[in-house]
């Protein structure tokens, strides 16, 4: 690899790292032809982890970080003094294949600053994906970050080559988006998202290959005054109305060359962590946004304890729950019991009445759960009435640095 390409790689990987998503999951299993290269496994693979605890699954780069847009939260906005570079289509193809052959990555996550016009940029990105697929028989994972301002016909073409498409909603509040990202237009982003949702659903029904890993999006948290409840409501709408696979939350993190209109301090990573936990409760545990929000105060989640515990502490009358008779829904609400543990409990209790030891084998956090559970040999003696229950269950205060 020559020096110019190495320099470009450094600049354009640096510029892309603020995007939280790096997943290579959600696609159907697929393998290359004899002369091609690559496969997808469905679950995705993380090939490495950086010291921020985030997984490196895809070669996550920008085609260019030159940009005509001026979004305050973005390091690549036109008014930033950051060092700029631009890859050619062929360079990205070479890098992707070179990395893939050495088993460094699952595939490519390509995004870009807007140069010349959204359409022009989108077309360049598409040429990368098309070349990988058609000229090199590449069957690895491709995630394209679609440009919502590009023409619908271009965005739709991306689905022919990409496994996953994403359009960033950026901020949950339309007003914030207007003030922080003057060139962006919230209704337009949603319209494009909606159009992709329809096309993906139709293709799935007709068993055609078209963005098989669906759509995802990202929201920045902590760059404006939006509450967690509003953020989660936006997510709930995106999951329900747009069939999104994932909503990523990115705690606003200080960037070099920051804009003056932004907070100087980073948003606590803990907040991002709690949002991911809440997101999980929305999707897999049957919680509603109102219930999750009720665990916190004034629309903000409790930062010290996870949202499920927060909900349980405010609904102590629903506990303790008998593991030997409670239904799945209620078991899922027990702090410390994950969906997998609940399924194991349901299986195991057909063989006899479960004791606390059994729960210890079926779940990994029986210490937390026991305060809320009745088993054949255990009753938490009005433990749920104790005023200090929160203190007993909350993790000891310490400087948190968390989560990817």
């Amino acid at each position, binding site marked *: 690899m020559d020096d110019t390409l190495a320099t470009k790689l450094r600049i354009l990987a640096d510029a892309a790292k603020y995007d939280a998503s790096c997943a290579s999951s959600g696609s159907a299993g697929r393998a290359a032809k004899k002369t091609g290269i690559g496969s997808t496994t469905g679950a995705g693979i993380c090939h490495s982890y*950086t010291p921020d605890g985030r997984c490196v699954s895809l070669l996550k780069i920008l085609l260019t970080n030159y940009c005509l847009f001026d979004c305050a939260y973005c390091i690549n906005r036109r008014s930033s003094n950051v060092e700029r570079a631009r890859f050619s289509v062929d360079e990205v193809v070479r890098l992707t294949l070179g990395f893939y052959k050495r088993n460094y990555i699952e595939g490519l996550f390509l995004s870009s600053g807007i140069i010349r016009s959204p359409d022009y940029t989108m077309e360049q990105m598409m040429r990368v994906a098309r070349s990988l697929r058609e000229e090199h028989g590449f069957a690895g994972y491709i995630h394209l970050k679609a440009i919502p301002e590009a023409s619908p016909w271009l965005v739709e073409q991306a689905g022919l080559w990409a496994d996953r498409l994403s359009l960033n909603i950026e901020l949950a509040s339309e007003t914030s988006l207007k003030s922080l990202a003057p060139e962006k237009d919230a209704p337009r982003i949603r319209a494009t998202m909606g159009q992709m949702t329809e096309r993906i659903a139709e293709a799935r029904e007709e068993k055609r290959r078209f963005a098989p890993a669906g759509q995802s999006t990202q929201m920045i948290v902590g760059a404006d005054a939006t509450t967690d409840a509003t953020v989660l409501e936006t997510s709930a709408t995106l999951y329900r109305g747009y069939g999104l696979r994932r909503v990523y939350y990115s705690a606003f993190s200080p960037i070099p060359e920051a804009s003056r209109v932004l907070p100087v301090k980073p948003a606590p990573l803990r907040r991002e962590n709690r949002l991911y936990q809440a997101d999980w409760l929305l999707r897999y545990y049957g919680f509603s946004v109102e219930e999750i929000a009720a665990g916190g105060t004034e629309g903000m989640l409790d930062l010290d304890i996870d949202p499920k515990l927060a909900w349980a502490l405010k609904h102590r009358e629903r506990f303790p729950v008998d593991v030997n008779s409670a239904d799945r829904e209620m078991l899922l609400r027990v702090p410390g019991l994950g969906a997998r543990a609940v399924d194991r409990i349901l299986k195991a209790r057909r063989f006899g009445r479960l004791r606390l030891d059994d729960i210890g084998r079926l779940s990994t956090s029986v210490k937390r759960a026991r305060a809320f559970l009745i088993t054949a040999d255990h009753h938490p003696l009005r433990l749920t009435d104790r005023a200090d229950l929160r203190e007993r269950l909350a993790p000891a205060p310490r400087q948190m640095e968390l989560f990817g």
Partner: protein
Amino acid sequence: MDALFASPAGALREVILSPGADAAGFRAAVRALVAEGLPPERVIWSTGAPGLFDAPPMAPHAAPAFSLPRAVTELIGLVLCHGDPERHGLLYRLIWRTVKDERALIDNPADPLVHRLMRMAKAVRRDIHKMHAFVRFRSAGMVQGRERFLAWFEPEHFIVEAVAGFFVKRFPAMDWSILTPHGSLSWDGTSLVIGPPALRPALPEGDGFEEGWLSYYESTFNPARTNTAMMTKEMPKKYWANLPEAKLIPGLVQSAASRVDAMIAREASAPRKRDPRKAVEAMSEQAPGTLEELNRLMRDTPPFVTGGTRAVLGEGPAGAPLALVGEQPGDQEDVEGRPFVGPAGRLLMKALGEAGLSREQLYLTNAVKHFKYVQRGKRRLHQSPTSGEVKHYRWWLKQELDFVQPRLVVALGASAALALAGHPVSVTRARGPMKFEGRPGYVTTHPSYLLRLPDPAAQNAAYAQFVADLKAAAERAAG
């Protein structure tokens, strides 16, 4: 122990298996032991080369096979790969209890034995997953026109054979070898060789992509979010020795805090570059400004349907009062690159003539711009587009008609009506005038429908009605 000594035929049986997973040896041994009725507490398992005076290894199929629940056989396959020397004894206890009187044992995750075996299987699965992830190939250059790669890896368990399929499937066109202390894999594009344990080789030097990878690893790390606990949980230190990027970790962690402090302390700086106002303004003029530009885009667009060698574009004068929209180009249209030149097109021309219209006056186009077909021998068999495919092309059609500005659009058949209306339309029921998203329109059949009618009388009647429709549409466009 009491039971052991109390048993009448109280002798212990020793079973020696080959080192590693040795699934075949274990299977044969278990069959023999179950057939003999030897309970787990009377069997001693070990691995190694069979000694001089040991019983000869048990031949496969010597004892009758018996069936086990699928979940049990899957579990056995994984646990046999585990490095724990107790694995055989534990598995035999599971098998014994399952075949004796606890057929459903595997379904009870709270049973201590099942729980322990499940955890062992999980550890093996994780090791397999990590090997898929953490093997790093070094390029060894080109050998006889094929690129060669070499890797050294140290898995925790006996999983070398278990991962082979993954790498063969992923890298079919490269030559590669993966060496490990438990065995090795070698692929040359056609066959896989599973070899003996290897020693750490000297890996080839000078793979430029590895430097690129290191620089990528460094750049993609965000110092503002340092969380080494999370990293080591997912990438345990035992794997670091063979990960080239791992040597960067200490330096990255050490400098992270000062990098973040520097970022926060730095005042927001005024942009040094002038505002590229002209470029920003020009950005909004990206939509194609003429029909020619739109057509150029369409020509460059990959087909949304299978087949389709080229886009067959619309034809006719801009400002034509009447536009006709068909379904999609057929074989002949695809060859000539013009709409309505095949059998259905010729019938349409005849009908137009009888309705007092000519091709030159009209704008002719299709809902789907590419010929969708499947190859059958030498023939290309026409396939109807699905509604999803029709919708992929809607944007084109809309833009096209916006440029042409006809006074009336005729939908020939259901696909055209769907493309124009945006929702399914029944041609039989909607036949006649109809608004397409505000655009004056008219629905009639597709001429190919007339060709498909088997009965000449029905064909004549349908044809007459088709001509009448075209006439009616032309009158509306004129009026």
